[in-house]
């Protein structure tokens, strides 16, 4: 009965979304206030319906109701309770329901926190979100109904993919989806502005905090995914350039460009049409990611079960949403005034240059992801665009990005001169060059040019931002002024600094791991010892063990640094009762400056095991950098300007200014 209730709630959500997509928009165009006023209740209503549907599915999972097809294929009665819950988004149907639920959550949040926005803007934004939701709900109901019944009812479910039975992966998809669908808010604001013909600084100020929050979620989602791949896939890599990973990286890159471009539009009124385009792209790439993962167009390690009918549906949906918004853009954007002028040496220029680098990188990732398709379509023969190609592209662009981040943060808006910049940054530059030289000394660099380059770039980011902070504080006497700065309007500044330092931390992590990691395949008998990177690994043997839904061989290692025992590690090789390939559970001794990582390969007879030992210096810094970026984003959105901006947003001056900009 409850699954049917969920199904009905889904249908009601679709109806609400369809009404939401049409009436408030029509009202805003014809000046019909009651229709515009429907926007908020409809947004709440859609969220409520989807929450009911989601709760119904959750109930089916938690009670192991295998009469529901989706539950029977993605769960099992032996599954621990927590994984029964996370199994809701372990497959295509449920993850799509989660996606729509989160999107309607963003819609409800916009409705709740937009009290001071002009009614017409709110109506249009919520309508656009209704349109996107309508498409997704149709998709869900027509091709991927999670409530479909199964008869006869199987006695047991097929089990959740063992790879997904992990706390990291239980939270990774919700975070990632929050980021993906969060960009729908920026998208809706952009389209609403295009429809209303009001692309002004106020529009940028409204959508900025939303976009930053979405970006923070996406950043955390990607970090979690990378961390999960590192410890769960059992071979120590942290990024694989897999199509699914690329699908999350592309919106992140464009989203990063977008939050910077929004800053320019808000502060200087420039880049308006470019910012709108980025807002459209960021969400479009999220949608494209969904298409690539769920259509079976590309092969991937984590592709969902694919179905051509679904692929076709998403493609048509993609055409309507992206094609429609780009057509709207082509129609409306030429009317947009270009806005504030700026000189060649200015923060605007630096941000524009970095924007282009981010977009260029996103385009390269898109090309690399689709390369097999492109080559096949044009019959150019075969191609291998793999790991090395992506790495090369990343290394070709990243240094310029890093240099520009430092320059851009120190440059003034509108007009700056090289002399002033030089006087300001010479020390930071000199210190980074010193790092470059020291790291390049024989014996320090490990024989690789990238070590000094990477460390110097990180140093440049650090020193350039310290300079920028000092410059800001020079006019503020004493720590009281600093505290006041942090309480007042300074948070977005310090958020920026923190996020940029995150880039430095990330660069250090990548540089150290890629150049100084050590790994070895070994065969060990119980009692054997093996040395790697100065650590001695002693293998004491394996024992049989079992979990709630798996059996495992568990190895026991002691790791010594000299004579001192620093860790005991217990890597496992698990066979899940639901079947499938055996899973490797790596054992990791984690540290800020190095990880020691042991993964069990296979039993090779006589108690001997094939093993893989890793030494991973600074690997945590990769994720720590991402965490810094996310924290920076959070700090920035708590800036007082947004709180007061919200109160100011609807002031007559703004509206008049907007009208003037339009005319």
């Amino acid at each position, binding site marked *: 009965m409850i699954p049917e209730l969920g199904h009905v709630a889904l249908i009601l959500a679709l109806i609400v979304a369809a009404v939401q997509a049409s009436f408030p928009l029509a009202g805003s165009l014809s000046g019909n206030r009651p229709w515009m006023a429907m926007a908020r209740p409809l947004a709440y209503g859609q969220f409520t319906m989807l929450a009911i549907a989601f709760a119904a599915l959750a109930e089916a999972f938690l009670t192991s109701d295998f009469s529901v097809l989706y539950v029977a294929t993605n769960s099992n009665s032996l599954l621990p309770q927590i994984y029964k819950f996370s199994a809701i988004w372990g497959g295509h149907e449920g993850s799509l329901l989660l996606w729509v639920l989160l999107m309607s959550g963003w819609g409800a949040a916009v409705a709740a926190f937009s009290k001071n926005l002009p009614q017409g803007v709110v109506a249009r934004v919520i309508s656009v979100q209704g349109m996107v939701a309508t498409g997704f709900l149709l998709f869900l109901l027509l091709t991927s109904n999670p409530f479909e019944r199964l008869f006869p009812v199987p006695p047991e479910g097929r089990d959740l993919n063992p790879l997904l039975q992990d706390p990291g992966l239980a939270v990774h998809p919700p975070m990632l989806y929050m980021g993906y669908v969060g960009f729908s808010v920026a998208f809706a604001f952009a389209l609403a502005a295009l429809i209303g013909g009001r692309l002004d600084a106020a529009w940028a100020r409204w959508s900025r905090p939303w976009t930053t929050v979405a970006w923070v979620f996406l950043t955390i989602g990607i970090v979690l995914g990378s961390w999960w791949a590192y410890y769960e896939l059992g071979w120590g890599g942290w990024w694989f350039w897999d199509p699914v990973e690329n699908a999350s990286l592309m919106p992140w890159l464009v989203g990063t460009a977008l939050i910077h471009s929004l800053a320019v539009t808000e502060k200087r009124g420039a880049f308006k049409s470019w910012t709108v385009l980025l807002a459209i792209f960021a969400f479009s790439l999220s949608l494209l990611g969904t298409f690539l993962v769920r259509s079976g167009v590309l092969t991937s*390690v984590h592709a969902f079960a694919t179905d051509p009918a679904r692929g076709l549906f998403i493609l048509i949906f993609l055409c309507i949403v*992206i094609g429609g918004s780009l057509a709207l853009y082509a129609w409306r954007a030429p009317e947009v005034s270009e806005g504030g002028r700026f000189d060649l040496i200015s923060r605007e220029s630096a941000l524009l240059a970095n924007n282009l680098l981010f977009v260029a990188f996103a385009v390269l990732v898109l090309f690399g992801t689709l390369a097999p398709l492109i080559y096949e379509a044009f019959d150019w023969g075969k191609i291998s665009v793999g790991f090395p190609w992506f790495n090369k592209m990343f290394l070709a662009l990243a240094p310029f990005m890093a240099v520009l981040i430092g320059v851009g943060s120190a440059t003034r808006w509108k007009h700056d001169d090289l002399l002033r910049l030089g006087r300001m940054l010479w020390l930071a530059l000199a210190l980074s060059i010193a790092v470059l030289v020291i790291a390049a000394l024989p014996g320090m660099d490990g024989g690789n040019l990238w070590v000094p380059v990477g460390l110097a770039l990180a140093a440049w980011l650090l020193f350039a931002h310290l300079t920028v902070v000092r410059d800001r504080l020079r006019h503020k006497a004493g720590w009281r002024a600093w505290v006041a700065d942090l309480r007042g309007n300074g948070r977005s500044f310090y958020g920026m600094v923190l996020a940029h330092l995150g880039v430095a931390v990330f660069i250090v992590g990548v540089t150290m791991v890629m150049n100084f990691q050590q790994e070895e395949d070994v065969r060990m008998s119980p009692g054997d010892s093996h040395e790697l990177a100065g650590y001695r690994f002693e293998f004491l043997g394996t024992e049989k063990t079992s979990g709630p839904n798996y059996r495992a061989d568990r190895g026991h290692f002691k790791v010594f640094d000299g004579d001192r025992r620093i860790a005991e590690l217990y890597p496992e090789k698990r066979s899940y009762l639901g079947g499938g390939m055996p899973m490797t559970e790596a054992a990791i001794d984690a540290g800020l400056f190095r990880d020691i990582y042991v993964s069990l390969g*296979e039993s090779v007879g006589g108690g001997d095991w094939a093993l893989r030992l890793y030494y991973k210096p600074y690997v945590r810094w990769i994720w720590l950098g991402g965490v810094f970026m996310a924290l920076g984003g959070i700090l920035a959105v708590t800036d007082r300007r947004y709180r007061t901006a919200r109160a100011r947003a609807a002031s007559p001056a703004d509206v008049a200014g907007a009208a003037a900009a339009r005319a």
Partner: protein
Amino acid sequence: MAMAKSVRYLIPLVIFAALVALLVFGLGTDPREVPSPLIGKPAPQFRLPDLTDPARSVSDADLKGKISLVNVWASWCSACRAEHQSLMALSEMPDFQLIGLNWKDEGSTARQLLSVTGNPYDMIAYDPDNTVGINWGVYGAPETFVVDQKGIIRYKQIGPIDRQVWEETLQPLVAKLKAEG
């Protein structure tokens, strides 16, 4: 001028249209299949040193007269490690030979890995620079080509061979080829 300016704003739409055309094409093809030009064609000619004994060589002539599974692998590839156990089981079967194509790999690392985990292959062509892999249309590892007794490529499996792939796809195909030959 005004005209040229508004045309500029159409560029994103045009690019998107091209992308859609590509994706429509993509929907009609199955990425797990070999690009059609290769299937039903003789395996591309090649001659490479044997990984385990560089004095010997492996060539397309070795594919004639026997059913062959040509498995593309590398020591850096995690899915290949997962597949290794299935390959060990397959190496016991008499109906076909298992030929490795060690792809974009470091010879010493690959040999080291095999000495630890065991060598399922009858012979292994060593292709560190992707000279042969590119002719075979290798996109990633692992991939497995099924080549019949006449040296014709009949099927390409992308991704690891597990029990399901073996029982549902490869085993019936090998049985069919055996009956043909």
